[in-house]
């Protein structure tokens, strides 16, 4: 029997994000594939940022990674994790399972010493929590905003003063006004953290992150040593959890948003003018990243091609 210690990148206590991982573990343990997994919380074995590296270096056989944390060394992982104006959940799943995404993901991961699968998905995050409402794009100039990743690059271009404070600092800094806004996650997560209490203007949409993915990564040597039946079981367990995770996370947001409103928070949407500005700056960022990294370019173009392919149908078929 394979017995895997599996570190995860986010706490399994977080509803809609981490909790489904427990289901995944139960599924694979029950799958009669001679694989038993045991989940370890962030930091119990390795810090959340190091999960992919730890798997590659065979410190642990497998891990549940937020793959985008590795964007410093593998830039294209930022796209796989969910990127500004990138694929939404339905498009992403389509790209991954039908549009060649799985092969591209596999190729990128193999190149970096691991094998892996899409293994968990959530919908769009929030655009952020702001201390003051935003009236125009001019309000972005000098606004002190805590965020990270490609979205941070986009906002820097719009004159925002972006900072990467750790979570422990974000809350008191936002409360006392050392920063003006912070990007969080889904309402269900942010409301638990209490971000809505210190910055009561919640903005949608999460243009910077239309989807959030989790990936199961397995050390290449460990993967190669599995039987076909075991490989099949691993892959199937991930397919199952991806759909389940998305539906759970979609379904629990309403309650969290209601709670935020009851606590005095207000929800807004970014104006069309703002969205256009984000979109324009995003195009610049994507072009720049594509020029720097061949894998990034290949995956970005593949994603865009899939988006174009399905958009005709998706746009026309939607009733609203």
């Amino acid at each position, binding site marked *: 029997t394979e017995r895997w210690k599996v570190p995860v990148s986010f706490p*399994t206590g977080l509803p809609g994000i981490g909790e489904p991982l427990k289901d995944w573990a139960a599924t694979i343990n029950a799958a009669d594939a001679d694989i038993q997994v045991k989940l370890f919380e962030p930091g*119990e*074995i390795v810090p959340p940022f190091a999960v992919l590296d730890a798997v590659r270096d065979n410190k642990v056989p497998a891990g549940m990674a937020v793959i985008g944390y590795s964007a410093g060394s593998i830039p294209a992982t930022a796209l796989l994790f969910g990127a500004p104006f990138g694929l939404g959940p339905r498009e992403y799943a389509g790209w991954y399972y039908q549009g060649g995404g799985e092969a591209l993901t596999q190729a990128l991961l193999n190149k970096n010493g691991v094998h892996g699968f899409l293994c968990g998905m959530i919908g769009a995050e929030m655009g952020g929590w702001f201390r003051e409402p935003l009236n125009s794009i001019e309000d972005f100039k000098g606004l002190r905003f805590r965020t990270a990743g490609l979205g941070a690059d986009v906002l820097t271009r719009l004159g925002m003063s972006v900072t990467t*404070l750790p979570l422990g600092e974000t809350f008191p800094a936002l409360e006392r006004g050392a920063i003006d806004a912070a990007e969080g996650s889904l309402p269900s997560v942010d409301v638990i953290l*209490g971000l809505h209490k*210190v910055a009561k203007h919640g903005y949608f949409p999460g243009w910077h992150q239309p989807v959030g993915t989790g990936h199961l990564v397995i050390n290449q040597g460990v993967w190669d040593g599995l039987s076909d039946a075991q490989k099949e079981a691993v892959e199937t367990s991930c397919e199952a959890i991806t759909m389940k995770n998305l539906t759970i996370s979609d379904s629990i947001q309403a309650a969290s948003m209601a709670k935020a409103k009851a606590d005095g928070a207000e929800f807004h949407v970014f104006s069309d003018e703002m969205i256009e500005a984000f979109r324009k700056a995003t195009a610049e960022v994507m072009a720049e990243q594509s020029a720097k990294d061949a894998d990034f370019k290949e995956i970005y173009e593949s994603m865009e091609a899939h988006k174009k392919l399905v958009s005709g149908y998706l746009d026309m078929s939607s009733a609203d």
Partner: protein
Amino acid sequence: MHMDLIITDYMAISMFLAFIVLIFTGYPVAWTLAGLAIVYSAISVALGAYTDLLDNTFYAIDWGYTSSIIDRNWAVMESWVLVALPMFVFMGLFLDKSGIARELMENFARLLGRVRGGLAVAVAIIGIVLAASTGIIGASVVLLTLLGVPVMLDAGYKKSFAVGTVCAVGTLGILIPPSIMLVLMADRLAISVGDLFMGAMIPGLMLGLIYIVFILIWSRLRSGVAPSMHDVAPLELGDVVQILGSMVPPVLLIFSVLGSIFFGIATPTEASGVGALCTVFLAAFKGRLTFTVLKDVSMETMKTTGFIFAIVFGATAFSLVFRGLGGDELIKGILHSAPVSPNAVVISVLLLTFVLGFFLDWLEITLIVLPLVGPAIAGLGFDLVWFAILFAICLQTSFITPPVGPALFYAQGVMPTSVSLPDIYRGIIPFVFLQLIALALVFKFPSLALWLPSIAY
């Protein structure tokens, strides 16, 4: 209560016992922790290679697993929040070496010297204010030790009393927000950081107040513990004005730290740098800023930072391997076999946390215990914020309970050489009891923790 132990359980237990025994050899605590991680990895690797004892368990470890030490150490070295540690140490040493600390405490002595325990009260007040600016125990304990202990000893305080005061007061920072411990606990329990910060406020301040009351009562009851100073001249009104005037700059200094957080100028971590710079300015203002002082302070900061981080590294290696051997599961097993009445569950969790606190640090206890008991406690209908605060008070106690009391280690490193380890151990005993009293009060009156979160924001 009955549990079946397997081979890895015995390994985890013996690793634990080996540590408790071996630190008394006088070999550095940090390297004992780190070394045991290596030795027990080697034992596990050998057992795995030559026996089938570790087959069919999750708790066989290989060198690859143990090499996660690298990533764990690196997480410490790239930590933004821990930057505050050397900064507060720098600030404390600068106040000390420039003579400002002594002057500040002497002024307190002139004001409060006629009151028995007055100096200790002054230290406690400074400690409470400091606690509101940092949650980094190593930093505040070092700072308060440098500031308070020499002056209290000069005034004839009993060593153990002086030392106990700084160790206990120095750990308030982990309870009074902002605090990295509360942030992690909120994360693990999936509750609001804000609620937890608010919830900890009253119990934290209450504990500080309990310390002050205890200091005043105890120094009155036991003569010789904290004598009033005989050579203090009677105060004239003019003196009072002059003393208060001379205390303005240091008080401004402390409020530069708090104020920069409160007015949104700096984050709590950056406030440590603000405090450090203001200290340098204050020394310059008083004509005490020389190159020698700056050099001495920097070197001592290097040394103090070195021994503190060695313990952090050692502890992270130890806990990784302890966890790898199934030590966590063992502790969870003990919890599972706990009694069933709801209050009894809470009490036994707290009791276990208290006992674990003698041997493990807060981070490990949080990682082990919280994810396990959180859902159970919520299921019993208790408020998780209330429980988290009780848990936090218990963890705060762990900092000052020997043999593994980080606050005691940090104080020991910068203590005058005349103070011995037994002095430190004796000194903290009453404060452990005071913390248990605070724990009992919050247990009995949940609104101490729940009232503020209910009205805040």
